[in-house]
């Protein structure tokens, strides 16, 4: 018979769970002493406290908060760039800078990283920072010859933790909601099983392209699908694509790319991530761009690539995302779970947060978030390649 001392058999509600997640992930400092439920939910989902459920999946509605500044011009030589951003809600924020040259950025005295927008003209800082609502000072220390043209601070929508039907303060937490939020918080959605054949777009079939971008049939060490690929020639170039999603759900955007250096990818207006593919000299490499919830309909995908880089193919892989899939995934990772609709007690919640996997990821949560949040083990990458391979049309060199 179980004879453990009582922790608590009280069933916890969604606000309480959201607060525990924020606390355990180390981002609760962005909340005040007595945080409102909406603030906690906003912090956990790129600034959205209200999520509209669509097809059983949370689909964030509306664009994330974004504030942009042109760099102050009346600045003495060597003086740091300083702007103040007034934020409407607590969230994880990403800093993007347009300009040139190496520069160190600090928000409220905390270094968020060194950025160098030179290769692309724009760069996103690696560190994603939790910030309270209210004014924040952004400061840049520029190296010799560096310049800042534009600064943007945006709620980081790729990080979105929410139950299927969105957050609701008084609603009891179920094992289904607990599993969905844990998987999202740990960045494990990429490990959900692949549902069906991917949507594949040839790189050279872009909808629009900026100057210096185009299609090429230049041969590399391994063949391009369809015999051609998109390439940024001599300068950075931006390619845009349009993907039609029939079924709303969780999708992974995986690209077969060539080149070296940071790339800036975005899906719609909400999701923007900086990725760095494995450098390749004379071949293509696979890169996982993002796993996210997509509503049904058309979505635009844009990729800003550095000079010499290119795209062979893009694949949108739909993943099975029923409650049972999230629960099974967590059980595979060693978490204890229950019936999807069964409420979660405080003891169950604490047990989940004390799991070695959660503790490991949570301890380095912020440093991983902007870097390799969706890093996946070899068997996940193997399953993805197996799903993608039939969709590729290899051409002879």
């Amino acid at each position: 018979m179980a004879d453990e001392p009582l922790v608590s058999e009280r069933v916890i509600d969604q606000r309480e769970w959201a607060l525990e997640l924020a606390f355990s992930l180390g981002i609760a400092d962005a909340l005040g002493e007595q945080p409102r439920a909406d603030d906690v939910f906003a912090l956990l989902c790129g600034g959205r406290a209200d999520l509209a459920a669509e097809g059983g999946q949370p689909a964030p509605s509306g664009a994330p908060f974004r504030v942009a500044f042109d760099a102050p011009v009346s600045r003495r030589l060597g003086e740091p760039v300083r702007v103040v951003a007034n934020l409407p809600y607590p969230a994880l924020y990403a800093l993007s800078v347009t300009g040139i040259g190496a520069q160190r950025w600090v928000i409220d005295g905390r270094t968020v990283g060194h950025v160098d927008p030179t290769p692309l003209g724009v760069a996103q800082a690696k560190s994603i920072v939790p910030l309270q609502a209210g004014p924040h000072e952004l400061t840049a220390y520029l190296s010799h010859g560096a310049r800042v043209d534009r600064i943007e601070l945006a709620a980081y929508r790729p990080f979105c933790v929410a139950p299927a039907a969105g957050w609701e303060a008084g609603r009891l937490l179920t094992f289904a909601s607990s599993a969905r939020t844990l998987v999202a918080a740990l960045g494990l959605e990429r490990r959900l099983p692949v549902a069906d054949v991917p949507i594949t777009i040839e790189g050279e079939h872009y909808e629009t392209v900026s100057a210096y971008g185009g299609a090429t049939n230049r041969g590399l060490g391994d063949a391009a699908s369809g015999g051609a690929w998109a390439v940024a020639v001599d300068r950075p170039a931006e390619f845009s694509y349009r993907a039609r999603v029939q079924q709303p759900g969780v999708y992974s955007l995986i690209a077969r790319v060539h080149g070296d250096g940071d790339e800036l990818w975005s899906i719609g207006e909400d999701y923007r991530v900086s990725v760095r593919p494995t450098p390749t000299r004379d071949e293509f490499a696979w890169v996982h761009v993002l796993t996210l919830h997509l509503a049904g309909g058309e979505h635009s995908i844009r990729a800003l690539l550095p000079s010499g880089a290119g795209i062979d193919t893009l694949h949108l892989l739909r993943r099975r995302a029923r409650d049972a899939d999230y629960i099974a995934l967590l059980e595979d990772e060693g978490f204890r779970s229950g019936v999807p609709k069964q409420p979660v007690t405080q003891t169950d919640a604490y047990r989940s947060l004390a799991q070695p996997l959660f503790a490991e990821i949570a301890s380095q949560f912020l440093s991983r978030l902007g870097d390799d949040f969706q890093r996946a083990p070899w068997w996940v990458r193997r399953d993805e390649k197996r799903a993608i391979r039939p969709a590729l049309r290899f051409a002879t060199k």
Partner: protein
Amino acid sequence: MSARVIALSLRGIAAVGACAVLTWAARAAAEDEADRFHYNASALVTLVGDDDPYLEQRDEGAFGGYLAPSLEVGYRADVFELNADLGADLRRYIDEKALSEEFYRAIVSGEVGILPGVSLRVMDSFRPEAELISSPADATRNLQQTNRAGAELRFWRELSGRRELLATLRGSHFTGEDFNAVLATDGSGFMTHLDFEPDHAEGAGTLEFQTPLGERNSVYARSELLHRSYHETEVADRSQFTIQLGARTRRFRNVEIDVAGGFGMVVFESRDDLRSFVGDASLRYRLPNGWTWRVSAANRFVTDLAGSTYVETTGRMGFEKHFGEWLSTSIAAFVSQLENDAWNLPHNLFGGAEVRVQSRVGRHTTVAFTYRYWDNAGNYALDDFNQDRVAIEFFYRR
């Protein structure tokens, strides 16, 4: 394994069958309720090298291999839950046939919600249990096949201000294989009882009250009353009472503290009472670089399979480090003392240390290497030994 234990375990096996049939039937009947059904199959293969497998200070080492297949099935409905955990542990040693043994596990449980906050749980647990507290709990020579059948009634209520009250009543019947038991005797040390039957009946009740103190802090009071009666001898029959006050906090991220202390008393039918302070203290601290360390201490009553009761004082500490998700290592050490001054028994001192490196090598597969040192010393020389043991484990679960 005695015929008596086998006969008793048949109930459990029958219940397992019933449970499996019920869960499969439930699944077939309501495909949309498949989420309520769960099963996991696993297998653990262990290669062992042990320089003292007999736990007797012999100069005889042995190499062996264990195979432990396991199957867990369960069905969770809104108001009831059924679970079965079936497994075997087949142990073979090279050139040491006396050590080769098989153990089996059939744990079947059912829980039903009778009223809001009131639940009844019944369980039959057929599994190996450690005979001596002062020897490793997984050592082949320290395991006996046992069966415990029991029921537990739980009452839980949330009071105003997020206070909680939990009361439980449980009763069980324990059956074990006959073995040559070393029994503590009042004032004269120990005696060997040939073919001891550890069968006993037990009844217990607990009462717990918890109240929060701000965010992530709580204080609690806990008391337990237990009575155990052995079939073969009245010497070990006892009533046991403990009461503790405790506090726990998770106020600081990465730090968990739990401290409890109180008083306990064991009243024997025919011997002097045993009284002691009882308490636990534990601290877990997770460093930002991925290291976790734990330190804990406890003072409590413990009873071995033969019914001998001691006050155990234990200190433990351990470190754990994860290198990403796929590799982890841990180092743990403990030292324990068993004493029963009320009966003038010699103190038994033992301790150990373990290093473990574990790696996940696939979606369902884990490999681990473990080295353990165990030393049993103290004033009671009869069970003294020291043991070095290395093990390589391959674990598959899906």
